[in-house]
């Protein structure tokens, strides 16, 4: 409410004020805007360049790649892509990766939502210590846990199953999810909970029907982060799998053989790993813009 009034007042001031704005000032604003657009354009251009090069290579045959330097493919070929998409030992890598990533997202959300709610609404014995301990898990280098993970999951018979990777990624994804969600939940006024309880809502019903919709942009941001960190991680995923659940990142190493590297296929496989990420960003783009500040403003 306060912000709203403020803004309206500000706009009023602004309309009075803008009549006085000199033409010189307006021109200067326009010029500085143009300059910032040019800078941004330059950054985006440089950023895209390595990705463009990968796409460029994925559309060429190996002889064209190695034969001459071409800034764009002379004879576009989709052979590299068809090779990957028709061979099950290739495309199962994508399926495996997507499977454990989505398992991880579901598990993390199920346990992180109630936990974040507890941290944002209640004081309980050891809450501060528990929260701190959770955050320390974000700082544990995966390399530290390689061997223990291998032994642990091997001994409980989960080795080379998708769920093993999903559980292992919980190590850093659950603390991250709780950290972000707690911020969003704390920004929802407590009176809403109390009103709902007075109206006769039970806790689970209130949580699902009222509370979750209120923090939906927070959930969008969290899902983005969960996807991102699980999808890009390879060290643990590689250690915990051998054949059945092998991630695509591992299968890609197959392109380098004794007779040299199959650049075209490597590039095409690389391009295909970018696609799921683009889809995820596209779906959560509005939430990101709104709520990436993790609710703490």
């Amino acid at each position, binding site marked *: 409410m306060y912000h709203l009034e403020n803004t309206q007042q500000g*706009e009023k001031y602004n309309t009075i004020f803008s009549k006085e704005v000199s033409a010189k000032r307006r021109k200067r604003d326009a010029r500085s805007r143009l300059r910032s657009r040019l800078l941004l354009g330059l950054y985006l251009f440089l950023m895209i360049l390595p990705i463009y090069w990968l796409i460029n290579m994925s559309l060429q045959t190996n002889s064209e790649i190695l034969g001459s330097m071409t800034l764009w493919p002379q004879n576009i070929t989709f052979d590299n892509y068809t090779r990957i998409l028709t061979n099950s030992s290739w495309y199962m890598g994508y399926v495996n990766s997507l499977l454990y990533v989505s398992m991880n997202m579901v598990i993390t959300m199920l346990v992180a939502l109630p936990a974040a709610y507890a941290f944002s609404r*209640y004081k309980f014995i050891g809450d501060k210590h528990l929260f701190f301990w959770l955050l320390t898990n974000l700082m544990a280098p995966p390399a530290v846990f390689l061997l223990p993970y291998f032994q642990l999951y091997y001994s409980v018979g989960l080795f080379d199953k998708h769920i093993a990777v999903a559980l292992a990624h919980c190590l850093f994804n659950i603390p991250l999810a709780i950290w972000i969600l707690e911020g969003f939940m704390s920004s929802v006024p407590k009176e809403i909970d109390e009103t709902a309880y007075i109206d006769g809502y039970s806790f689970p019903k209130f949580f699902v029907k009222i509370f979750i919709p209120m923090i939906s942009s927070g959930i969008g941001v969290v899902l983005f982060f969960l996807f991102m960190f699980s999808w890009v991680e390879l060290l643990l995923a590689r250690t915990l799998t051998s054949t059945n659940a092998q991630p695509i990142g591992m299968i890609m190493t197959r392109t380098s053989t004794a007779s040299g590297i199959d650049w075209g296929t490597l590039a095409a496989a690389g391009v295909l790993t970018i696609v799921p990420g683009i889809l995820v960003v596209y779906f959560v783009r509005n939430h990101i813009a709104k709520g990436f500040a993790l609710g703490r403003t």
Partner: protein
Amino acid sequence: MNNNKVQNNRAWWLVLPMLILVAFSAIIPLMTVVNYSVQDVLGPHARFFTGTEWFQTMLNDSALQAAFLRQMIFSLTILAIQIPLGIGIALIMPKRGWQASAVLILITLPLLIPWNVVGSIWQIFTRGDIGLMGWGLRELGINYNITRNAGDAWATIILMDVWHWTPLVAMLCYSGLRSIPEAYYQAARIDRASKWAVFRYIQLPKLTNVLVIAVLLRFMHSFMIYAEPFVLTGGGPGSSTTFLSQSLATMAIGQQDLGPSAAFSLIYFLVILLVSWIFYTTIMHMQKDKNPQGGA
């Protein structure tokens, strides 16, 4: 966290499922590491208690000390580049309309590429024969070769990390900037505040919270960097770009030295914890000095 919280120990029931799951993935493996770090494992039934011997060996290992130094230089360099660059990009990103969405999607792109693919992209990009950058630099007459010159390898890894992770800083700052009410800017315009004054007294204070997150996340991840340099340079030439994670992985998986690598793991973990804590308290302290009301 807000202050009007209710004391209720039944909240533990809400935390419990999370606790069980994280404990399974964190405490059991960590205890295994602690267990190994104080023993010499020769076989399934032959193990001896060694006390702090492995820790002493690891702390005095010159190769690891060198890797640690490299790691520190690397992490501080990329923080010094990425944080200002990220803030700068966030400031010039369009604020609304389709352009805002488009730029946001484009900028996020590098974040969502698997880390080993990032390594592959840059390996291809910087090769002298088939990569645009390597070829271009060579055409310009620069003797650029990441497999032979340590300086080139370093510059490339830093460039790769800046390319890979600046978007995260930019996105966090962008959303921090978006949360500033328009009225603040209007007030500044009425005061005829300069661009620098707007940045220094309106935008930067509002960014402190997201910057804490950005600095912490960037420090932690850069300190654990593994896949990108491993694919790009393999730690070479020589061991000039071998960072801590790679030394550890080589020792634990490659050489199967359980005791020493476990001791190393624990030291590694504690260093990250310590530095993160120092960053956090320093930034929080600076913030408290600036606005005594406790702003955040």
